[in-house]
């Protein structure tokens, strides 16, 4: 049972107060995109063992979506951050790098 701090309202949210939303930072592919790009966007997910960037909604709280950087093996939370961004903030990337020096977003 995860507990994640919601960066939107500041409350510590229990997993049962959250709704998961899958992988974060997907790039939307719309009309005009190639079949390969659409396939990647709709169907291909990494689901890595280790660092994951994921979407969560504080559904039983402030109702806002936020993003979390987490380790899928150790459950360590490197940080949560607002959804209105294309990459985790530097501070969180630094924290990830301390555990996983070779990690790169989307790699």
């Amino acid at each position: 049972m995860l507990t994640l701090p919601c960066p939107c309202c500041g409350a510590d949210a229990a997993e049962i107060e959250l709704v998961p939303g899958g992988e974060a930072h997907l790039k939307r592919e719309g009309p005009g995109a190639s079949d390969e790009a659409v396939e990647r966007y709709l169907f291909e997910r990494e689901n890595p063992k280790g660092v994951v960037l994921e979407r969560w909604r504080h559904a039983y709280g402030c109702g806002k979506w936020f993003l979390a950087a987490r380790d899928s093996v150790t459950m360590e939370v490197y940080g949560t951050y607002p959804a209105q961004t294309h990459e985790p903030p530097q501070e969180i990337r630094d924290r990830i790098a301390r555990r996983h020096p070779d990690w790169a977003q989307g790699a």
Partner: protein
Amino acid sequence: MSTRLAKGGRLTDRSKQIGFTFNGKRFTGFAGDTLASALLANDQMLLGRSFKYHRPRGVVASGAEEPNALVGLGQGARFEPDQRATTTELFDGLVADSQNHWPSLEFDVGEVNAKLARFLPAGFYYKTFLWPRAFWKHLYEPVIRRSAGLGKAPHPEVRDIDRYEHFHAHVDLLIVGGGVAGLQAAKAAGAAGAQVLLIEQGAHWGGRAPVDGGTIDGMAAADWVARTVAELETMENVRLRLRCMGAGVYDHGYVLGYERVTDHKPGAHGPRHRLWRIRCKQIVAATGAIERPLSFAGNDVPGVMLASALRDYVVNYGVSAGDRTVVVTNNDDAYRTAIVLKKAGLAVPVILDARPLGGGALMEEARALGIRVEPGRGIAKVLGGKRVTGVATCLQAGEGSVLEEIPCDAVAMSGGWSPVVHLWSHCGGKLAWDAENAVFRPDPTRAPTGADGAPFLGTAGAASGAFHLSDTLADAEKAAVAAAEALGHAATAAPPQAEAASEAALLPVWLMPQGARAELRMKAFLDYQNDVKVSDVQLAAREGYESVEHTKRYTTLGMATDQGKLSNINGLAVLSDALGTPVPQVGTTTFRPPYTPISFGAIAGEARGEIFQPLRRTPMQDLHESNHAAWEPVGQWRRPYCYPHPGEAKRDAVNREINATRQSLGILDASTLGKILVKGPDAGRFLDMMYTNMMSTLPVGKCRYGLMCNENGFLMDDGVVVRLSEDSWLCHTTSGGADHVHAHMEDWLQCEWWDWKVFTANLTEQYAQIAVVGPNARNLLETLGGMDVSKEALPFMTWAEGALAGTPARVYRISFSGELSYEIAVPANRGRAFWGKLLEAGRAWDITPYGTEALHVMRAEKGFIMIGDESDGTVIPQDLGLSWAISKKKADFLGKRAQERTDMARDDRWQLVGLETLDGSVLPDGAYAIAPGRNANGQRNTQGRVTSTYYSPTLKKGIAMGLVRHGPDRMGEVLGFTAEEQDHTDDKPTLVEARIVSPVFYDPEGEKQNV
């Protein structure tokens, strides 16, 4: 025989007699007894039968690790199987029954299985019942079902009459286990300033120390326990909870605690069990250790018990398990039992110590009491069937040649102690093999880690493998200091001074004697409940099972209700020996929560009966109830399916409601429809992305039917969108879809187009919404008065705001039935009164409330699709003839690109058509249209299926919609559909013939709704 001693029993109160029954026989015990101690006091050693061979089983242990003494407890609405007698506190009127025997505990037919034991080795079921397949249905399954299961399930019609509840607690430090280690840890952490919750599974504080002796701070352990508990009770930051087990530890410091609130006083006011859902920052597991049995032939005969248990029964309850007890051990601790028994006036004919040189100080103390000690010896086999009558001794180093037969009626065995590492392991803590003590203990360098990446759980005392009293307390102090420091409190370790006898090293003994012959190994039990023997594990190894996890499943070792608390280490040591692989490499099986079984009631908590799940109610719900509605679940709503008159069948009621509506006037409670307000300068642009249609161009005052797809292109929801003002729209969704659609909109606004200026609000429950339908709908509204609802003022697909009969209302001129129809939204608090006004004013036209089934039929008659019937998550709007609702002008909308994928664009997708049976009957729902030939799996090919099907009282025949390959191009063609009851192996299926027709069965020109 087992009996109550003349005196003793530190936990019992001999002034309070308690009556109870076992297998219908009346017994008495004392307050403070467990069911097990009270039964032993009455010479009831035989308590049940084992699972596989139905061998006689007696009490082995005195606590949570007990594998044998499982009983059915209580009767009727309080009956519960598989309750451990050793942890059941005795209460007046307790009723218990033994399990797994027929016809009686003393004489059991299933015992014949035991005679066949050599034909029922490990993996027997897997090997024997594989083929032929046809035997499963008539032979194997009935036999297995009759003999399987432990205990008997409560009667299916009986309802548990007790209450259960949950409790969410947030604490800084949770300490699990109220022995001296847990108490010391609580004291130390509490003194450092931490907020502490200390829970203990049993009814008493202090754990084993008061039985095992030794002194702490110069006082007897029991006195120290009493003093420490009293101290803790005065500390404001420390909370204590008895009868509350730490059942499981999960990610981020989430712990389940299982409190047995009134098990010991059934019928008392209050919940029976309380499930604690604890979120803590730090955990100290002071969960103690469990004594291991020794594996010798006949170690399962009633009367063979753990050495510690025999001593517990004497010291705690004043009960002796036997008059003459042989002690067999590989360590010093068992000598404590011999000493206790001897001092209680009981005979201890011999201590068989497997170690060639015997033990240390405790051995000397035993010898000084006149007890015979035989080093280097073990038990070749136990004599006796339903009860121990003696032991045959042998050299531990030999093959089991009998040296001597010694009469006795009890055997106290000890194979050493294993730390209870369950909680440590639940959340990822790793174990290290401690060769000196022959135990797996927590490896402090690989502790469970939490959200911050730092350890959040430590063990204290015997759970760490610190067995000696002074080590136990020092380790507890250390764990408490570490936890307090992790919580930001300064603390220094100052453990109390403890003294206890020093102990000589143990000798790992996994089989007794070391070279036991096959016939002895076949009687040396590892898992008492599941009847797994040393020979079974060895056979598994010979058959190639190298992984301990596979061996567990193949032999069922450790898979019984005790989850291998006694058997695991012994079993894997036997496996290690058979494989020639060291124990640490063989490893352990996974420890999974709960530590001991917890009740279903506790898991369900308050969620039962009427509050099993939330049932959503519209403002008019109680009116529907008093109007005797039959219900249809729609999400968590319960909508009226129809309103049968007294004696009227549901299908007749549906037909009546449809006819009344089409001919005169009907009303429907449509409050469950989702209503989402979307407002802002970018709202139009946003809705153009949400819907396949163009919504930005919808004029103020108008309504438009819209389709919503997900990014995969599949139809997700539909509903009427209303333009309220220049910058605001109200989006109606399906009844089940409101929350999902609102979340979906917020997702895109917050995570993709976060710079768009749009706000949404879910107004679903702000309004009571009522559909007024039928040729007299306008007459009714005009009678109510207050608004101009004429064709000119309020044409089809427009809306107006005002008041009807004094009730503020928004009126939408929309129709899902094909009739003249208005949907009226009024403030929810006024919905009940407004419904009443409609019924009152509608009498003139015989107004008829109709339910969801009439709604569905009338929709289907018009060929309108239903989300969830015609769509199922694989259907795109183009499949449903809804291309007209997909804007060609828009550059983009959600799902547009996906609808261009080759699979979506191929021309042989199944498409919507109407279907009419040739004989007028109603097609079976979900029936498939058969095509010639069979597919690669040998199944018949198909070319379509029925998506919704009804009897139309309007047309007086069955009508249906379905998806058919090239359907719209095949009008008039007749297809064969599978009939209701089908045997799919039959080559000549019964088919129902139906013709492909237009899906619009009623008023195709829309003349009726446009009046």
